[in-house]
Every structure is written in C-alpha cells, then in structure tokens.
C-alpha cells in the first residue's frame, strides 16, 4: 500500500538525502517492515512517528545498515547501499551521525574521550586540533566545562547532549536521532528540540528522527511520516499531516487505543 502523501512532495528526487523503497524485514515469523517507502529531503528534519512496536527504530537502524533488509532499496546521497560491504559501506556510514535512545556513551571514557572518539579513530587530526574541535562541539550543545565527567556522573539530559555532540563532532551530513527526548522532563525535552533545530540550521544537516513526543516534536519538524503496522501510512509537511483525515493518525494523536492495540497489549491471565 502506498503511503498517503498529503500535498506535494518537497523538491525533486535528486534533492533527497535518503530514499527508501519497498523496505521489508522480518524477525522469524514477525513481519516488522512491510514495504516501507520514505524520502528525506536534503537539509530537512523528517520525524517518524507511530505506535510503539510499529517498526520505527528498526527502520532507523536500516538506514545506516545496522540491520539489513530482506528486500527493498535504500539510496543514500544517490548511492544504493543495501548490498554494500567493507570499505564502501564504511564510506557511507561516515556520512552519518547517530544518537541512540539511551545515548550509548562509552561508560569507561570521559565525556571528552567519548566526543573525541570518532576523530581519534577516523581522522589524522593532531591532539590540539581534536581538543579544539571537541570543546567547540561540547559548547555548541551546552556542555562546556563537562568534558572531564564520566557519563554516570551526568543526568539523562546531559548524557543525551554529550551523545549528540559525539554524533556531530565529525561533521556528518545526515543525523539520525532515536527517541532523543524519551525519559526527559518537559523542560529538557524542549531544550533538546531547540538544540536539534539550531544544530540542523547551523550545520545544514539532513535529520531523521524517531519520536514519541507528539505533538511537541512537530514544532521542530519539516516533514512527518506516520508508521502503522510496518508500513508508512501518511507522509507530508506538518500542516498537511495535521490536517489529514486519516482515522488511524487521528486516533494516534488523540491517544485512543484501537482494538488491535488493546489485543496486542492485553496481559495474559
């Protein structure tokens, strides 16, 4: 089923940072992605929303081939990536920065070492250059003076910002965010959203974000993609999607569970 595209797609296809066509993935007998289509225009923030368990994070992990699809196409900056291996795959991955849901900071390293890690491992920059770049990036996410802390010594919001700094420090072209505000209070959620928008504008990034913070996340989104039962049911700009008459999306926004949701979440006696 093709997703309902509300309004017109923005730009032509050559202006897309990411194009996904017919993506399918199963885990055993469970079908998680059932023919997903998605376009991420260059320099825009696309937010993927949908009920828990609909496949949002699985889709996100396919974009940089942490997971490999059973079928379908993924085109990154004009390059088909599904069959790539080795150095060719690493070249594509170096275009990405990713913020994992829990940050995934290396807990044996300080914040400085965490953020410096991609530069130390993948570049030939001098120690002084790395230090300057790391401190600049930490300052851009509001963590100046925190470089000697360990992740365990920081709050959840600070860990997310440190993880965001690590995702940005090597100047990626595409930023992927997996539920960046989950577990944060409303104040910190707003701060993270503002940071994402400011960072995207400053660096001109293409951003793909998975979020449950609906409708707050729409304020920082250029386009929204609504996933349901492994398919992309609705895509468009925020205004187009919000004015859609799609029943499932309206139910999702209102927080009303469907019969399927109740059945899937029923506690067995």
């Amino acid at each position, binding site marked *: 089923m093709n997703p309902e595209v509300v309004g017109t797609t923005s730009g032509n296809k050559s202006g897309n940072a990411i194009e996904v066509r017919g993506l399918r993935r199963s885990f055993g007998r469970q079908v998680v992605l059932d023919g997903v289509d998605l376009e991420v225009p260059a320099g825009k923030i696309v937010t993927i929303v949908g009920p828990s368990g609909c496949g949002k994070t699985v889709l996100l992990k396919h974009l940089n081939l*942490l997971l490999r699809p059973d079928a379908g196409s993924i085109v990154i900056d004009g390059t088909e990536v599904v069959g790539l291996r080795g150095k060719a795959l690493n070249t594509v991955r170096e275009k990405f920065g990713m913020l994992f849901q829990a940050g*995934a900071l290396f807990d044996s390293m300080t914040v400085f070492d965490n953020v410096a890690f991609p530069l130390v491992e993948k570049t030939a920059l001098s120690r002084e250059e790395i230090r300057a770049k790391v401190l600049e990036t930490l300052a851009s996410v509001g963590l100046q003076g925190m470089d000697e802390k360990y992740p365990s010594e920081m709050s959840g919001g600070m860990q997310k910002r440190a993880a965001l700094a690590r995702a940005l420090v090597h100047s990626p072209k595409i930023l992927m965010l997996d539920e960046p505000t989950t577990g944060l209070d409303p104040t910190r959620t707003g701060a993270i959203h503002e940071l994402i928008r400011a960072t995207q504008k400053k660096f001109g990034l293409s951003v793909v974000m998975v979020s449950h913070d609906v409708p707050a996340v729409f304020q920082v989104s250029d386009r929204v993609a609504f996933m349901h039962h492994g398919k992309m049911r609705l895509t468009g700009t925020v205004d187009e999607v919000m004015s859609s008459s799609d029943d499932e999306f309206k139910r999702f926004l209102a927080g009303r569970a469907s019969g399927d949701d109740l059945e899937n979440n029923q506690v067995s006696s």
Partner: protein
Amino acid sequence: MIEQLGASIIDGIFALGNFVLFLFYSIVFAVVPPYKLRLAIRQIRIIGADSLLLILLIGAFTGMVLGLQGYTTLRRFGSEGALGTVVALTIVRELGPVLAALMIAARAGSAMAAELGSMQSTEQVDALTVMAINPVQYLVSPRMIAGIISFPLLTTIFDVVGIWGGWLVGCGLMGAPSGDYFNGIASQMGSHDIALGLYKALTFGVIVMWVSCYKGYHAQRMATGVSRATTEAVVLSSVLILAADYILGALLL
C-alpha cells in the same frame, strides 16, 4: 516435532559456525591495520598485571599442598628425595597451566563477558558500528592479543611460585632435603616439559579470550542475558580448558 528438531539442529550448526568464525576474525583483525596496540597494552594490564596477585596466591598454595601431600606419600616409599621432581613436573606440565587458566577465566574472563554483554545491551557496540569502526577489531582482537601474551607469562610465574611453595613446606616444614629437591628438578625437568606447559598456557589463553568475548558479544540485550553470558563464559571456558589439556597432553607426551 520433527520440524522443531530439524530447526534446532540447523540453529546449532549456525551457532557453531558463528563461534568458529568469531575466533577466525578476532585473530585476523589482530594482525591487519588499523592496529590497536594501545588497547592491547591496556588489556594486558587488566588481564595480566591485575591477575598477578591471584596467581601468586594460588601458585603458592598449590605448591604448598603438593609439598605436603607429596612428602607424605613419598615418605611411605622412602623416596623423599624425589619431592622436587614430583612437585616441579606436576606444576609445570599440568597444574600451572590449568589452574592459572581457570583462575584467569573466573576473574578476567567473566569480567570481559559482562563488559561486552553490557556494551551490547546499551547499544555501545552498535555505536562503534555506526561510526564505521569494526567492533570485533576494536573490542575483541586486543583482548585476544593480551590473552596470548599474558597467559604464558602468568603460568610461568605460577610455576616458579608453586615450586618455591613446595620447597617451603616439603623441605622447610616437613624436612625433605633441600639439595635433593632442587637437584631433582635440574636433572629430571627438560625443555620439553617447560614447552608443554607453555603450549598449554597459550592454547588456554586463546580459549578463554575466545569464549568470554564470544559469550559477551552475543549476549541477549537484557540483564539476564548479561548474567547468563558471564556464567556460560566461565563454564564453557573451564570445560574447554580441561578438554584441551587432555588433548595436548596426549599429543605432545
């Protein structure tokens, strides 16, 4: 039922294949660039240097027990003079490599499995992959190098301390002649005995690193997964150490 049995057999074969390929890649990535020398040195400190006190204690007590039991038994046959030979050959050929490996497996192997399992469950391994860094080359290969270097060294230390422990009890406490103790070692122990012990230590080092890293790297992403991986790492390492001990002993005798 037959379908389930068939599926279990196929899954088992896949798992065995993955297990062997894991060893292959961890060794290959240790010798291809980018080299992780700094990480290997760090792991030598964690696996080797930090295990030293444990090895000293276990080695000393093992030698002391051998000295005590060996003297008591040999005295029945009037052969107290052979105590040094018995203690030294037993430790160098068998107890040194095996007990040192078992202790390091329990200490460092379990910690390694827990660390890697924890990294898997908190997506730190995925973070490495996303940064285009080979997680096996970064996490596993340095540990493999450290094990290959550390195990023979620790085993040698165990052997020396164990022989001295046997002398302390057998000669110092029980009264066996010191001259006979060390002369027996010098005349009866050959390079073949020492080489056998070191070959075993090297093999056990590979086994412990391989099993511990594999179990941690493939731990299920939850708390019980990490604890299960840690337990299985120690148990499987121990079983394979004893099996390899027999095989190597039989082949190199």
